[in-house]
């Protein structure tokens, strides 16, 4: 029995991060959609309705928190699963993200890539 592959949207402007995350998540059996700025991220979220969104904060055109707030105003978007993946760690950013309902706030430099993949799998089981 073939189960439908689940989709992860990566909203990230760093090419290295996109490449490495995509490779590992694809190997883990997920379909990957990419967006390189917040505006594209919002559009693709609402169009493709991914099972999980990995969202960076510092992004061109529209930053991650603004995109998140707009996403939450949408009927589908308000329940979308989001994990923040960023290298920003100031209090105000974390608070805003949590207030807008994210599963996790991960500081990239503090996480092994394999552990990020593990976290994603954990969250997808819900």
């Amino acid at each position: 029995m073939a189960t439908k592959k689940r989709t992860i949207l990566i909203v990230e402007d760093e090419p290295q991060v996109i490449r490495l995350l995509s490779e590992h998540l694809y190997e883990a059996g997920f379909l990957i959609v990419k967006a390189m700025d917040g505006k594209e991220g919002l559009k693709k979220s609402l169009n493709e309705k991914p099972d999980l969104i990995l969202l960076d904060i510092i992004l061109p055109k529209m930053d991650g928190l603004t995109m998140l707030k707009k996403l939450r105003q949408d009927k589908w978007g308000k329940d979308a699963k989001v994990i923040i993946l960023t290298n920003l760690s100031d209090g105000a950013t974390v608070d805003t993200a949590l207030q807008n309902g994210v599963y996790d706030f991960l500081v990239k430099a503090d996480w092994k890539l394999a552990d990020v993949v593990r976290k994603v799998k954990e969250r997808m089981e819900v």
Partner: protein
Amino acid sequence: MPKEYYAKMWDTIKNKKKDFDSEITNRRKNGEQYEASIDVAPILDKKGKVLFFVGLERDISKEKAIDRAKTEFVSLASHQLRTPLTSVKWNIESLLDNGGLNAKQQRNINEVYRGNEKMIELINALLNVARIDMGVFSVETKKIDIISIAKEVVNELLLEIKKKKLRFTEEYGKGITPLPLDPQLIHIVIHNILNNAIKYSHPGGVVDFSIKKDKKSIFITVKDVGIGIPKHQQDKIFQKLFRADNARQMDAGGMGLGLYIIKAIADASGCKISFSSKENEGSTFIVQIPLSGMRKKKGERTLEHLA
């Protein structure tokens, strides 16, 4: 400001007849908002009845703007620094996962990875120091079991302990019930003193770790028989970026920020850090926490996890 704020102010100066000292967002005649520091005091007659109030207001918009700029700079700078380090970190992890390296290559790559991790740790430490210097870090307490945090830390350091073939003893006293602690901060403190003991021990040395309590306080004690601290440098060890001469020679990879950070945590939360040490014989560090727990402190953010 919200209604409750003014209610509190009037209650303080009129009913409680006390000084009211606070920061406020106020509005100019032209409608523009600004930030001010206010101090309102009731003036009482001989019978203790309120005659009138004296209020002092100081426009602190500029100071606040400078503080915000400093916080943003530190945040942004650390973000920029972390970006390439993340790329190195994850690329090396991928490389190692793929295998196919000979022993020499593995060793070289492992050293690159280690150096990269040290830089990440340094950025976190610098972020912490910046937050401490600007007074913006918070102490957010909740009732937790200190022993479970201690065990987490020990677990994180087990590999290092094994690598150095240290004889490690762990002792947890009876009757230590959950108390108000900031989990992140207490983790940083325990991690730092334990990590120092391990770093500055000779291979095959002994490290004793214990948490005990008496009638008033909880004591976290770490004892090692390593390089110790030279007597004439002992008064400097809590200074920023200070590393004793023998520590530098050992190449244990410290930055001289750990003790500065944990001393700031202790001072802010009502705890005490003390130590005794003799060069070439070892050191004992003791963290004392009152049974009432860590004292809360309002701030913008708790500190970064190190290592």
